[in-house]
């Protein structure tokens, strides 16, 4: 374990475990992050060094840590932040040094249990970090929504360009990184790139924090999925959370936990969320509930999204529990084709991908439901967590 050690949350315990952080010169830091090959852990797997170089080349850059963890089935960031807040704060210091930023921010959901822990941790250090309490909405933690929240108090995605690395907080080029990405930076600055590459897949090195059916584990990247999730008696696996895709159990037995492998299987590693669906439940009913949640979480800004996602969610619901009609199913196919790529942010793209993967993986159920035979699992207890509306 690199990130999730036995260390307690205080600065003294943190330094006893990892040693004190001394910041190497900026050029050396950038080279180390690049040589380490660190990919962002917020979902897209973007090379951290590349963003850093762009941001660092601009005037008066800023850094924003994304500790919101908007995916309802993810627990990894909140575990990391509550158990090891100083790793993330060290990471912010490293990121700021690497891009030459004096303006440093950290965004969390307003109701996050990690907030008091971070406040206590910040009180132990001399490090100016501005904490932002973001409303708990799915799209509020998309990076341009966070920029907008810091700049104006409204956490809704913005039209791009400009991307945050071009123009973000107070129009400054802004490095946005996930909390886990920052924690890895804290260790790369201490131990160097060769150490970082000692574990994990050579192209996507290091360890990953995963949330597997609600439990957080740290594993080297490249681990076979079957070794981290219990696939016995399961009918499908959702990988990557609600921005991810369903894959069949047969596929789940084959893939390893890398962006490369999961992409090749038509899926996505995303932020490391794995949910297994027991044989007794109905994948379509589960999908319908999440599709309704995602539709409800649209930011109400873009026509194709605020019209398309509710229409899609209602059609998936009809497919799952009735009333079934052919015209709705024809429309569903059309909507799944016209909605992606037409929002300001990628929220509609993720929702459509999620539904499309369900229609493919649960194709037999779709056929049965269409024939008027919904499965027995339609009334089984729900498996995928969906936050209650208006929870914050």
């Amino acid at each position, binding site marked *: 374990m690199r990130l999730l050690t036995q260390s307690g949350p205080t600065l003294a315990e943190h330094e006893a475990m990892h040693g004190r952080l001394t910041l190497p010169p900026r050029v050396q830091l950038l080279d180390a992050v690049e040589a380490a090959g660190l990919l962002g852990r917020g979902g897209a797997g973007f090379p951290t060094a590349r963003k850093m170089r762009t941001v660092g080349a601009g005037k008066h850059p800023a850094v924003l840590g994304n500790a919101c963890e908007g995916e309802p089935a993810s627990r990894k960031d909140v575990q990391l932040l509550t158990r090891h807040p100083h790793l993330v704060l060290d990471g912010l210091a490293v990121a700021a040094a690497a891009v030459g930023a004096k303006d440093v921010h950290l965004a969390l959901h307003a109701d996050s249990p990690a907030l008091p822990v971070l406040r206590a941790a910040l009180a132990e250090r001399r490090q100016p970090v501005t904490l932002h309490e973001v409303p708990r909405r799915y799209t509020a933690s998309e990076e341009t929504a966070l920029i907008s929240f810091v700049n104006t108090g409204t956490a809704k995605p*913005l*039209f791009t360009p400009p991307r945050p690395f071009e123009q973000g907080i107070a129009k400054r080029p802004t490095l946005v990184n996930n909390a886990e990405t920052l924690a890895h930076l804290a260790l790369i600055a201490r131990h160097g790139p060769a150490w970082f590459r000692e574990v994990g897949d050579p192209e996507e090195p290091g360890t990953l924090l995963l949330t597997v059916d609600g439990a957080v584990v740290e594993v080297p990247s490249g681990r076979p999925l079957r070794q981290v999730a219990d696939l016995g008696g399961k009918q499908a696996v959702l990988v990557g959370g609600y921005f991810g895709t369903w894959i069949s159990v047969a596929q789940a037995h084959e893939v390893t936990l890398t962006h490369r492998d999961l992409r090749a299987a038509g899926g996505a590693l995303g932020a490391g969320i794995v949910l297994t669906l027991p044989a007794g439940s109905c994948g379509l009913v589960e999908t319908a509930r999440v599709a309704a949640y995602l539709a409800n979480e649209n930011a109400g800004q873009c*026509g*194709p999204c605020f*019209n398309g996602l509710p229409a899609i969610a209602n059609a998936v619901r009809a497919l799952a529990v009735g009333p079934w009609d052919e015209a709705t199913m024809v429309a569903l196919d059309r909507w799944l084709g*016209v909605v992606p790529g*037409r*929002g300001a942010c990628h929220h509609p793209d993720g929702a459509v991908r999620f539904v499309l993967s369900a229609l493919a993986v649960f194709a037999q159920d779709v056929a049965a439901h269409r024939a008027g035979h919904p499965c027995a699992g339609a009334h089984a207890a729900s498996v995928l967590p969906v936050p209650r509306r208006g929870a914050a």
Partner: protein
Amino acid sequence: MRLRVNPIECAAHGLCAELLPEWVSLDEWGYPAVDDQPLPAQLVKDAKRAAAACPTLALKLLHD
């Protein structure tokens, strides 16, 4: 040059589809779907007119 819609500003007035039907179609809710390929030279003039005519200035001409 390419045409893009800022979907946040777009309010489905639909003028763009009238002025540039070769490149813009409307979905069933009245919102434009725009071809994101480079604009052919002969359409650039009409594209500029469509962009200027949009009441919310949501249609953007972006240089490659």
